[in-house]
Each structure stands twice: as structure tokens, then as C-alpha cells.
């Protein structure tokens, strides 16, 4: 009777307030087929990561930095050493001082960080109507429902409803909180990039690919983590079983 009472109280509470934290008031979409990286056994799709990197490099990198990544990190999404070197060498970095005390320019190396589009926040704002395009290294972990949110932002540019007063320079987006975003639709049409693996670069495909790339960038060790987790949990299950058996046999003789 009392257990029943207790269970009832707890159940009422848990049902009355589902999902504790702040639920997003915005529109969320999941692409068809879902995310290959989600779930206990989910892994990144290397093909999608490379396509996503291409989208970042050719579209988003015009405005957004990714300060936490180095070119060498690209090795773990399936580029070989020469390809990483080639990608890095497309950029120049300022290095120095050299023995004469002068700064100099040189091609970037795999150990260099991704090239940032603007030297500082002020410059970024000046080029974007006063808005600041945030660094994208962690963006998937920095938003609730990271992947779905990102995908929805990128595919959420529609015409503003009649009755909505848009501020100058703002764009209507059905997902962004407040629905007015300073970023112009970055994936406004198909074929902004040409994929080398023959995948058709539709808006949705590009949004899906770049989101997967950014998910990897935010959590590059996710696959190691899940792999190790399986081993750790199996080990603990075995240990728990052994201790449980030991406890049972020990306590059985006690009377």
C-alpha cells in the first residue's frame, strides 16, 4: 500500500513535468535516414564528413572560423598525409620572427590551425552588418539538439509571414529563436559545391553533410569513446556478476 503510494507520487511528478530543461520553442527537422553517428553503435560516415568539409571550406569558411581544428585533424576523416598537406598548403600563414627578427609568410602546414576568415571579432562584425558569425568548432555541442538544430537552421529559410516586421538586413528562419537571423541563407541553392564522389549536391544533402562534419569537429573522439564504453561496460557487468555470485553464496550459509 505504501509502496503503491510512493510509486504513485513519483510517477505523477515525473509525468507532470517531462524534460526538465528549457525546451526549444523552435522548429526542428531530422533529415531522411537520421544521423549515422547517433545511437549506441552509431559511427561517422567518412564520405559525408569529407563532403561536409568541402561545404564548410567552400561556403561557411567565408564567414565562420573553426579555431579548435588543425589541418592534421583531417587525417581522421579519411584524408591521407599528402592530401592533408595539399589542403593545408592552399593557405598562407604569418610565421616568425625569423633570425633577422622579421615576420614572414609561408604556406600552411598540417600542424597549423584552420585559417580564420577574419583577423578579429570587430572585422567579422564589420563585414556582416554588425553580426558576429560564431566559431563553428563546437557549435553542435553548444546548441540543444545540436545536429537537428543545425540542419533545421540551414534548411529553415522561408518567406517571412505577412504580419512579421523584419529588421533591416535580417532573414526569416523558422528555427532560429526569434526567427530573425543575420546570416543570409548560406545554402540557398543546389550545386554550390561539386562533390567528387558523384553525390548530388542538393540543399538538403549539403546541409546534412556539413552538419555531420561539424558534429565530428565538436566530438572527434566519439567513435573511440563508444568502442571503449562497450568494453568497460562488459567488464563491469562481469565483475558485478562475480561479486553477486560471491555475495549470494556467502550469505546463503549465514543462519
Amino acid at each position: 500500500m505504501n509502496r503503491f503510494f510512493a510509486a504513485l507520487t513519483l510517477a505523477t511528478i515525473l509525468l507532470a513535468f517531462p524534460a526538465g530543461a528549457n525546451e526549444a520553442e523552435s522548429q526542428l527537422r531530422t533529415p531522411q535516414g537520421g544521423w549515422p553517428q547517433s545511437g549506441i553503435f552509431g559511427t561517422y560516415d567518412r564520405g559525408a564528413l569529407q563532403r561536409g568539409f568541402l561545404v564548410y571550406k567552400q561556403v561557411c569558411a567565408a564567414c565562420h572560423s573553426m579555431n579548435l581544428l588543425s589541418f592534421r585533424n583531417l587525417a581522421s576523416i579519411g584524408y591521407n598525409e599528402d592530401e592533408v598537406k595539399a589542403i593545408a598548403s592552399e593557405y598562407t600563414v604569418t610565421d616568425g620572427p625569423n633570425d633577422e627578427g622579421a615576420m614572414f609568410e609561408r604556406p600552411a602546414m598540417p600542424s597549423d590551425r584552420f585559417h580564420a576568415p577574419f583577423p578579429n571579432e570587430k572585422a567579422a562584425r564589420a563585414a556582416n552588418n554588425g553580426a558576429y558569425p560564431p566559431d563553428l568548432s563546437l557549435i553542435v555541442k553548444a546548441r540543444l539538439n545540436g545536429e537537428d538544430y543545425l540542419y533545421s537552421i540551414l534548411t529553415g529559410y522561408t518567406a517571412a509571414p505577412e504580419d512579421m516586421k523584419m529588421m533591416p538586413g535580417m532573414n526569416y528562419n523558422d528555427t532560429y529563436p526569434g526567427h530573425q537571423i543575420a546570416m543570409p541563407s548560406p545554402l540557398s541553392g543546389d550545386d554550390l559545391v561539386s562533390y567528387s564522389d558523384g553525390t548530388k549536391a542538393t540543399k538538403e544533402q549539403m546541409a546534412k553533410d556539413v552538419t555531420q562534419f561539424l558534429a565530428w569537429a565538436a566530438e572527434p573522439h566519439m567513435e573511440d569513446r563508444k568502442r571503449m564504453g562497450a568494453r568497460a561496460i562488459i567488464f563491469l557487468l562481469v565483475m558485478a556478476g562475480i561479486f553477486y555470485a560471491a555475495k549470494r553464496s556467502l550469505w546463503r550459509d549465514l543462519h
Partner: protein
Amino acid sequence: MAGNTTPTDFGNPVINWIDKRLPVFTMMQKEYGVFPTPRNFNYLWNFGAIAMVMLMVMIASGLVLAMHYTADTKLSFNVVERIMRDVDYGWLVRYIHMNGASMFFIAVYVHIFRGLYYGSYKQPRELLWILGVLILLLMMATAFMGYVLPWGQMSFWGATVITNLFSAIPLIGDTIVTWLWGGFSVDNPTLTRFFALHFLLPFVILGVVFLHIAALHVSGSNNPLGIEPKSDKDTVPFSPYYTVKDLFGVCVFLIIYAAFVFYAPNYMGHPDNYTPANPMVTPPHIVPEWYFLPFYAILRSFTIDIVIPFTDIIIISSKLGGVLLMFGSIAMMFILPWLDTSPVRSARFRPLYQKFFWLHLAVCITLGFMGAKPPEGIYTVISQICTFLYFAHYLIVLPLLNKYEKPLPLPPSIHEAILAQKK
């Protein structure tokens, strides 16, 4: 103490030699080997050992993190990311520490409600209980300062909101806040001192845990029946009976912990803390970590200024009122042994107390949910009702129960109760 210890023969000359001069082995044998322990514990009694393991895990993982961490407002955010990305297994150590704090609080909250249900705070365990509440307070301080270290948005704004509470203290409030911050806002001096304190406090906790356990070994453990063991038939030696049972309990707990670390490491965290701290941008909802939410709800439930009638002189501002209530909620736990004077410990034999216990648990959980909501409309009303119920439990219900509750008859002894149940 040393004078009356009779040397034990451990059958190993080296151990005997050491033990004669420093009787640590005799002590361990006495306190953890043969220590007579009630034989009727249920699994709720595992949570003390689990909390102990969590403290060790936190100290070990924290130490590794501290070797790679730098406290500097310009560096900390990126340094933590560097640990996540470039230090070998750095992601593992950080996720262990991050989720470990939550798991530690889960273990200790279960441990505390176990004590509330079975009356473990009653005579002769009052000091043991008070040391426990002290541990809880120290844990809160430690966790709060630890959360500031990665210097994300919630780190910064959480620290700002909570330290600002001290400004509610009349007259000297602002001075205290400036002193806490080491400046005029949460900034580099705040971060560096929080790091120093976050490193120190777990070792203070360790010291208090030692006292907590020393006190436990004077009174002995309580048990689900809440009656003292009367003879050898009521107890078993701690080892191997409870060492093995604790090891089993710890393993099960670690499985749940591992599920979070490896498969949902950010589930209990807040996404905003993956954005670097920015004093110019206030997040829309500032929420503390989940384990502070009930207290946060109590803090925000006080919404009016109390003034001297017919003037506009404020005696207690809503802010000060909230702070007083929040500290008051913990003070209730400190004085609990003197609020509940019923001679019967276990709720099993207290039909009314049992119902109020569950109500109290429900109130605390509801407060937790309210702490995560914006302080407006119905949420504020629910928080206020629950805050009232929280205090009413301690200040009204318990004293009334002392007077009017008729406890059920207690069993004559632990082993007779076990035998009776078997039949």
C-alpha cells in the same frame, strides 16, 4: 589509544613488526574486518561506500585534469578543449570528472534520503549526521567552483548570479562580493582563486569523511528496522559480508556511471557551456547544474520585499529573503535531530511519518523541476507552495508527529524479525 592496543598476530613478520610500532593493521582489522554490522541492511546501505568510491574517482580524475589545466580567462576554455582533443585519453578523464560530479551527488542524495527514511540522524548519531550535512555543503561549494573552471557561458553567468547573492547581506554585502571576486566583477582573479579552492576542498571533504566514518564506528550503523543490535546473532563481521555486497553495489553503480560517460557524456550538462564565457552576452536562461536546482527554486520563490508598514523602508529584500530561505533549507537538515524526537527511528514503524517522508521527497523533486523553469507564472506559484511544504515538513509536521503519532510495535531484535519474516 596506543596504550591499550594488544598486538594482533598477522602471521607475517614484516606486518607484525610494523603493526607493533604503528597499529594500522590492527585498526583496519578492527574497523573493517571484524567490525560487527547489522545483518539486515538493504541495498540502500551501499550508497555510503558508493559515495566514498566517487570521492576517490573525483580526486584521481581531478588530479590528472589539474596537470593539464591553466586558470586564465583568456586560456581556460581552449585549454579544456585541448585536453578533450589532444591529451591522450583527455576526453575520457574530463567526461569521468564531469559526470562524476553528478553521480557523486546522486549517491549522496540517495544516502541522505536513506538516512531520513530510517531515522539514521537520531540519537546517538546526531554528530555523524551533522558531519554528513557538512560534507554536502562542502560538496556544493566544490562543485560550484569546479563548474566555473572551463570558463564557458554558464560557468561565468552561474558564478556571477551565485556570488551576487552575497550582496543581499545588509551593509557589508557589496564589500563581501568585491572581496570574493577579487575585483569588481567575476574575472581572472575569481577564476584563479576558484581553481585553488576547487583543488583544496576535496581534501577537506576527505578529512570530514574520515571524521564521519570515525563517528560511525563509535555508534555503529543503523539498519532498516532502526533498532540497535542486541547480540551476536544480530550482526555479521563487516568483512567479508559487506565488503562483497558493497563491491557488487559499486559495480552496478559504475555501470550506470559508465553509460553516461561513454554514451551520453553531455546529457547532464548545459549546451551553453560549450560557448566561451562572454561578459557582454547574457544567456536567456541561467540555470545551475541539476543538483542545485531544488535550492535554486527555493532561492527564487521569495518574490516580495518585506517593508516596514506605511513606509517604504525595506527590511528584507526579496533577494535577501531568498538567500535566507536557501540557507535555511540546509539549516533544517542540521537541526533535524532535534526537530524529530520520536524515539522510533525507522519509518517502517511510523505510519504517518512514512507518508510525510514520501511527500517530502516529492516536494524536493518538484522543486528540482521548478528550478529549471523560468521564474514566472505558474512555476513561481508551484515553487512557493513547495518551499512552504519543505519548511512545513521540518517545522510543523515533525513536531506534531512527535506528539500525535502512534508508532507500530517494534520487533524484539533484528534476528527475530528476520526469522519472523522467513515464516
